[in-house]
């Protein structure tokens, strides 16, 4: 019990301080910032427009003028990757947010109240889960029509069950703990108990799943774009670029390489940041 504990620390600030100490997480945060800045200043960064075709220079390997090479229409891949970050990041984050919020809420309610509420929600989730995620997204996108917003909604809905299940499982474990009973004993309302006691204690699995979920969302969105239900060409989107380049992978592998790398880098940065956040949020690991 040293002196510094007397100081008044807010939990948020302390979490941040702890996160700062985690080098890998800070590296992830750095990459993520770079990606976001790229997305915002795409107009300034990209040397060409994303839809500027130059058939004479098609299938060019990375060279001085086109550092990532060009695609089958001679479009500059670097510019497309830069512009693509706008769409992909947006799709990834918003779709995951939809899934986390909706799935989290459903899972929390199912886990906390149990009984028929639980049954009803979880059976509905089972129905959604029994349809392959991509297929589900396809049908939702088909029903709502193509377009960026619908793409995000479709991808989001397709991953709701995953979050619902994870949250429900951790809520089931945590609600049995005595501190929840203690909160009830002092007369805390159910909603407050759920928000203040239960959900913060199931953050860890949600964060880990969400970081992976962004990757899944980007790829699902790509799949949808591929079959014409997502982003209309020529709007660049990493997943779409990747699936498009698949046919040329033997001869022009760099066409796959760069959008692939962009996705991998995003996911990597999110994962290390997610791990770091999870540790930073756990007061038990406080030194």
């Amino acid at each position, binding site marked *: *019990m040293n002196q510094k*504990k007397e100081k008044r620390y807010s939990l948020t600030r302390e979490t941040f301080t702890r996160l700062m100490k985690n080098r890998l997480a800070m590296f992830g945060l750095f990459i993520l910032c770079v990606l976001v800045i790229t997305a915002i200043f795409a107009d300034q960064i990209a040397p060409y427009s994303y839809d500027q075709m130059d058939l004479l220079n098609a299938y060019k390997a990375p060279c001085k003028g086109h550092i990532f090479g060009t695609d089958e229409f001679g479009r500059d891949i670097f510019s497309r990757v830069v512009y693509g970050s706008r769409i992909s990041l947006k799709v990834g984050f918003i779709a995951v947010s939809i899934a986390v919020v909706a799935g989290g809420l459903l899972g929390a309610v199912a886990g906390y109240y149990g009984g028929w509420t639980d049954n009803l929600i979880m059976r509905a989730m089972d129905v959604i889960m029994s349809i392959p995620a991509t297929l589900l997204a396809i049908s939702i996108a088909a029903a709502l029509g193509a377009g960026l917003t619908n793409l995000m909604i479709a991808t989001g809905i397709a991953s709701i069950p995953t979050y619902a299940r994870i949250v429900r499982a951790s809520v089931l474990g945590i609600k049995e703990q005595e*501190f929840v*009973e*203690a909160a009830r*004993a*002092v007369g805390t309302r159910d909603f407050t108990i759920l928000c203040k006691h239960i959900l913060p204690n199931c953050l860890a699995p949600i964060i880990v799943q969400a970081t992976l979920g962004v990757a899944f969302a980007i790829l699902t969105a790509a799949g949808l774009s591929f079959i014409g239900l997502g982003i209309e060409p020529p709007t660049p989107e990493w997943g779409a670029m990747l699936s498009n380049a698949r046919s040329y992978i033997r001869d022009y592998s760099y066409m796959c390489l760069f959008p692939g790398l962009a996705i991998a880098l995003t996911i990597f940065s999110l994962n290390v940041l997610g791990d770091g956040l999870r540790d930073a949020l756990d*007061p038990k690991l406080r030194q």
Partner: protein
Amino acid sequence: MSEPLLEVRHLKKYFTTKKGLLHAVDDVSFSIEEGKTLGLVGESGCGKSTTGRVILRLHEATGGEVLYRGRNILELSPREMREMRRKMQIVFQDPYSSLNPRMSVKSLIEESLLQRSRGMSSAEREQKVLAIMDLVGLERRLAYAFPHELDGGRRQRIGIARALILEPEFVVLDEPVSALDVCIQAQILNLLMDLQKELKLTYLFISHNLSVVKHISDEIAVMYLGKLVEKADHETIFKDPKHPYTKALLSAIPIPDPTLHPERIILEGDVASPINPSPGCRFRTRCRHAMPVCGEAAPELMQNGKSIVACHLCNPQSVETARVGGQE
């Protein structure tokens, strides 16, 4: 004799399980006078903790009444019950799992205030938290520490502070010292007794540790498989136990004195299952004095000397029937 603060009448709590109906608390009645302590003793699974929780409506009762100053709290609406919880609090056994690991000491203690006293400014709340921390012997500098940084004794003090901040009249202490080392246990027991005197608290003290219960309680009730088998003041129950189970339980306590070797009653076998119990006395499967009548009818609680006992042996009528039955 003063009015009982709390009266429990024919309290029942059954849980539905896959194997059948689990009779956790089966027709339990007792009362506690204001400012006194009732010790509730029994082995694991006998329903003592459930009784405590049903009284506070942390579990809903299957049947019976819980009268608090004459008012049946089992019938209160959720809103009225929230108001009632101000008067009735609980301290949990496990000082590890009963504190939210993500909350600081101050926010843990403050929580119930946030629920109630909406008009209170944060400075007032802080004053109140610090005052209660002084009262339970928690150093003020720990206000912003987290539970896992503290030892078991201090954590249990947080639990007590949290229960006391609303100034309750009645506190259920559910095995509050079982997870603690003897020296810390003694500190907490003394604290609880001091607080009782100072704040005129009424306790329901639940424990499996008879020596601890004897130390703190005025009256002791012994439970076995959901039933109350004996109740008496703490002197009587130790000097003159009536129920065979109470006798066995008392003789099973290891005595920290190598010169004393009292005769020990070793109970055969294990506690029977509380699921779909057969009629008759629940203890008869392990009782050396079991008579045919024990399998037929459950013994009622009856006054016997200074104690109340539920045993056919202590009921002259049943013993007579048994004797006649034996002769035939």
